[in-house]
């Protein structure tokens, strides 16, 4: 089951890259996120799974679809058609290298065990407080950047009309 989910995740990610239609790419990416969230739930990472479903599969997909809708109707970007030939070759070589490297690592890494105590809230708020402050800073910076970019765009738009 775990292997099937992983293969689904990689397959949908590849479809998102190779798909010609941007809307299909965004939807494939959302499906890959759902696969990743199921993997997280199976690994007992409930909070990360919830974030993955709600934020990545939900919010980022909405952002992508909005951006695609706002930029649609303009010239289509001509991608190189050789991708359909090159990518399978690249991926095959990658899988072979991956299998060889991982096969060599089997059994060589010692068991890693270190159990921790407390709840998720305690770890997030007490141990990782600096990360939270950084997150707040990044979100504010993002909001200000988006506001500045759109305001500048509107000014140029009005200037063009006059």
């Amino acid at each position: 089951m775990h292997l099937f989910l992983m293969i689904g995740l990689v397959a949908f990610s590849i479809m998102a890259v190779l798909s010609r239609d941007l809307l299909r790419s965004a939807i494939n990416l959302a499906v890959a996120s759902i696969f990743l969230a199921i993997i997280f739930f199976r690994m007992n990472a409930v909070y990360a799974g919830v974030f993955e479903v709600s934020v990545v599969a939900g919010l980022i997909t909405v952002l992508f679809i909005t951006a695609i809708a706002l930029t649609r109707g303009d010239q289509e970007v001509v991608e190189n058609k050789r991708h359909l030939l090159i990518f399978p070759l690249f991926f095959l070589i990658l899988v072979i290298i991956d299998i060889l490297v991982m096969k060599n690592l089997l059994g060589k890494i010692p068991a890693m065990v270190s159990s921790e105590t407390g709840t998720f809230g305690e770890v997030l708020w007490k141990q990782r407080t600096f990360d939270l402050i950084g997150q707040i800073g990044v979100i504010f910076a993002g909001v200000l950047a988006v506001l500045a970019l759109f305001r500048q765009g509107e000014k140029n738009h009005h200037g063009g009309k006059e």
Partner: protein
Amino acid sequence: MNNMWILNMGFVALLICTGLYCLLTMKNMVKLLIGVEIIAKGITLALIASGYARDNMLVAQSLAITVIVVDVAVIATALAIIISINRHTKSLDVRKLTKLKG
């Protein structure tokens, strides 16, 4: 448990390389962001898989959530920049960004 971690890391490598391939070869700006998103997925999976192998899920989850939040801020800003560029060049092609005219 350890062999499962190695299996997970194999898939993480596949995801990151797929994202890098997308970043290196695609010309569409939205596709480039999709590549960044795939790399972020790989990194989140690596964090959670390592936490699972080490029985250290709480710290791994809090780090994964940090990555997800930063990723959202990056994607939102990048999409706003792409829309702004699209208003000027009327295209999503990165090759058209080489001509900078004032």
